[in-house]
């Protein structure tokens, strides 16, 4: 029997929500075949089965939370117990390998980097039956936490009894304290869907208290509970969860914290588009066969960011400091079918346009299949959102907090424009730069965009100047 333990998912992630099982107990599964879809607070990933065999048991049902180190599934490999537990070390390298690579740089997660050991059978069975959700404290007595963790909380000015714990028996770990201190005050249970009816009374009271408090700080803020919409007609309800919910949180945060200003311009990409089409056709079957306008824009943006470093930065309003990033990781918004994902193309300043276009294609297709690695969704310094292919003349995008700027691309289409007093037909790409007015001004934005527009007007300029 092989116990597949949920490996370290990297970057301090302790748990994941079960989105979808590909198997049921009793089913046969092959090595590397999809086993389960899990969702962390950054991305949904499909976990392949590390071993082939018959599925003996699975960790829980859709919507349940499973912790790193817990059993995901037990697979009867037909190898016999001893072999199962011995070999358990190796196959775990496979799924664990990728997250470990990401986690390699994270010294502070050292405790979790150790390869998870298969747990003794008897404890496992408990886990298999009842996957441990992040345990809510009964509220009696002080929260369990080792002395060093309590001291850490004091050092960071954190009230330890408020920190949502992820350790066993509701123990607060040092990571929990760090996370809380960084402002992520959401309890891990928030990812949980079910709200038992008997807790609703408490929730309502908590909501009223929160609403009252928030309203007292922001004038005219209305946080009245929503009406029962079914009063006026038939409705359909769906829980806000998974990626949709993550996006919702991001949007609220970005809109509240960042003063958005949009600078719009049109780029004449007639020559560029001609060049692109020709090159794409020539390169069918090889790298460059997916050459898109977006790849060119990524290059132009990268060059622009080098000159206008304010747009490749982050602002810490608590410490009141700006971090200018000297690396260029451009996030590209993708409609994954499950929601908005922003995989990141790293080090665009060191890649050719063709390399960039190949990477974008790869990331986008894997995003649609739900096969992105968590690390591929992190580390971005600037984002581009291209709704052009779907239509629309222009858009004002929301900044991907904690970045400070985002470029929206509308649909490149032929339009009549005036050149030298004459009306001509040109391919026009509408661009909107939304930026954080705390860190840059309209003039900076204008210069940035004007430069980009100029470069996009002629492929030779992209070659020479970027």
């Amino acid at each position: 029997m092989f116990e597949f333990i949920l490996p370290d998912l990297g970057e301090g992630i302790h748990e994941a929500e079960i989105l979808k099982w590909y198997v049921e107990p009793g089913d046969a599964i092959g090595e590397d075949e999809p086993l389960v879809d899990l969702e962390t607070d950054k991305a949904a990933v499909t976990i392949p089965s590390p071993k082939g065999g018959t599925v003996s048991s699975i960790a829980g049902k859709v919507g349940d939370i499973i912790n790193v180190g817990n059993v995901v599934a037990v697979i009867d490999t037909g190898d016999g117990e001893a072999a199962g537990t011995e070999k358990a070390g190796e196959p775990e390298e496979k799924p664990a390998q990728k997250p470990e690579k990401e986690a390699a740089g994270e010294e502070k997660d050292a405790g979790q980097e150790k390869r998870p050991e298969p747990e003794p059978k008897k404890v496992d069975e408990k886990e298999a039956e009842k996957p441990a959700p992040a345990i809510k404290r009964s509220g009696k007595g002080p929260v369990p936490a080792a002395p060093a963790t309590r001291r850490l909380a004091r050092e960071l000015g954190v009230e330890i009894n408020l920190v949502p714990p992820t350790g066993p028996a509701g123990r607060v770990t040092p990571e929990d304290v760090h996370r809380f201190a960084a402002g992520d005050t959401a309890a891990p249970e928030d990812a949980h869907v079910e709200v038992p009816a008997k807790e609703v009374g408490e929730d309502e009271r908590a909501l009223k208290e929160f609403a009252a408090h928030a309203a007292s700080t922001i004038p005219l803020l209305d946080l009245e509970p929503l009406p029962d919409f079914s009063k006026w007609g038939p409705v359909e309800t769906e829980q806000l969860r998974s990626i949709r919910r993550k996006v919702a949180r991001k949007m609220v945060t970005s809109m509240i914290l960042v003063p958005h200003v949009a600078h719009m311009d049109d780029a004449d990409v007639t020559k560029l588009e001609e060049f692109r089409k020709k090159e794409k056709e020539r390169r069918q079957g090889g790298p460059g066969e997916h050459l898109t306008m977006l790849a060119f824009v990524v290059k132009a943006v990268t060059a622009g960011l080098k000159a206008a470093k304010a747009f490749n930065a982050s602002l810490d309003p608590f410490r009141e400091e700006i971090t200018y990033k000297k690396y260029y990781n451009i996030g590209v918004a993708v409609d994954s079918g499950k929601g908005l994902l922003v995989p990141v193309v790293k080090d665009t300043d060191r890649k050719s346009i063709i390399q960039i276009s190949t990477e974008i294609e790869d990331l986008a297709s894997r995003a649609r299949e739900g096969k992105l690695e968590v690390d591929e969704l992190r580390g971005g310094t600037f984002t581009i959102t291209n709704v052009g292919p779907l239509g629309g003349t222009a858009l004002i995008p929301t900044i991907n907090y904690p970045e400070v700027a985002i470029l929206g691309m509308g649909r490149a289409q032929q339009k009549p424009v005036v050149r030298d007093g004459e009306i001509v037909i040109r391919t026009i790409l509408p661009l909107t730069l939304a930026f954080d007015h705390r860190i840059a001004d309209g003039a900076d934005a204008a210069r940035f965009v004007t430069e980009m527009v100029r470069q996009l007007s002629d492929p030779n300029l992209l070659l020479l100047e970027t």
Partner: protein
Amino acid sequence: MVMGSLSEETELLVIGAGPGGYVAAIRAADLGREVVLVEERDKLGGVCLIEGCIPSKALISAVEVADAAKAAENMGLSFGEPSRDLFRLRQWKDSVVDGLTGGIRGLLKRRGVEVIQGRARFEGPNAVAIEGGAVSRVEFKNCIIATGSRINQLPPGYDLPLWSSAEALTLPEVPERLLVVGGGYIGMEMGLVYAGLGSEVTMVELFPRLLMGADEDLVDVVVKSCADKFKDVLLESKVTSVEQADSGYRVTIERDGQEQRKTFDQVLVAIGRRPNTDNIGLDKAGLGVNDQGLIEVNSECRTAVPHIFAIGDVVPGPALAHKASREAKVAAEVISGHPSAFDNRAVPAVVFTHPEIAWTGLTEREAREAEREVTVGKFPLRALGRAWTMGQTEGFVKVISEPETNLLLGVGMVGPHASELIAEGTLAIEMGATLEDLLVTIHPHPTLSEALMEAAEAAAGEAVHINPPRKKK
């Protein structure tokens, strides 16, 4: 006695050199503070070292040897009746105390702490006057009050030379018939010492049982074991009068509305202690006390006056030396700018009876009073190999945990070396351990420590060496 008119200034003044005061002074000095320590006795170490923990444990050790020798008859070893040289025992006990108090003085000297002998009294929030010292006044930026506690006397009228625990520890003699008034841990320990030295000991206790602070099941084991050591144990009984008799004292004891008169050669009064907060001029410092005469402090051990701290028996909490020492370090660290706090989840308590009792964290009684549901796992020493090899199978270990999460809440033990074994339980609770953490940890065999592991297993329903509870059908 020359009253010097020398006045000093210091960064930190510590009042009292007991396990609270001297530890605070050393810790603060190590963290770079300039420290002055004032102590009224000529020896350092406080009640604990001079007339409490240390001498009592020394005597208990001696008496235990005699007990062990007697018990060894079962193993085929006969030593006969021991001869007791009280003088030598006293000498040895004194050498233990002197060695330790001298050691403290050495530690303080090495750290550069200035020690002043004298009695400190607050003149204001930033200065104390010192009586009987070479220095008459000390001004301070910070102060730690560690004046400890003193023995409760019997009500006025009893100005007879009865024994307090302090006197009893000086071993004046071994009375033929000794009455111990007070069945708390001091009365019990002293009663057992004198019984071990040959006295006929009678215990008198106001409450329905001895050692009211401990869980009943733990005390029961000790009471059963000690049954043959005491002549009589009178519970729910009160001493209403003590009169001088020809040889000894005539004592009237009231119980159930009935009065008895008995004669004893000596009476040891162990009815509790009171904090030394009424004689240090607290009001001049801007401080007061609560109903129990204790100084209220926050988790930093800080009083209502921000630069004055208080620790040990003068503040709320169990009046135990190790609690004072921990508070001492907290206060010294906070004064030195560290984010320290007294947030300990468990303060262990130990009674050096035979067998020993020790507990830490939540007791079953506390859980009952708070109407808190808990799981209790008990492991009897009768089922433990090491206990058999020692010929001491009376006792058990119990583990108290939270039902759904298996979080460890408390540990109680009665048996040999419980005083040593309780530390593991305290660490486990401090770390937020669950039953799993305890029972997965390998405990060496054959030792008494395995009992803690098995008690955790019992709480988790998986004990190996005891039969599982029969399931109700």
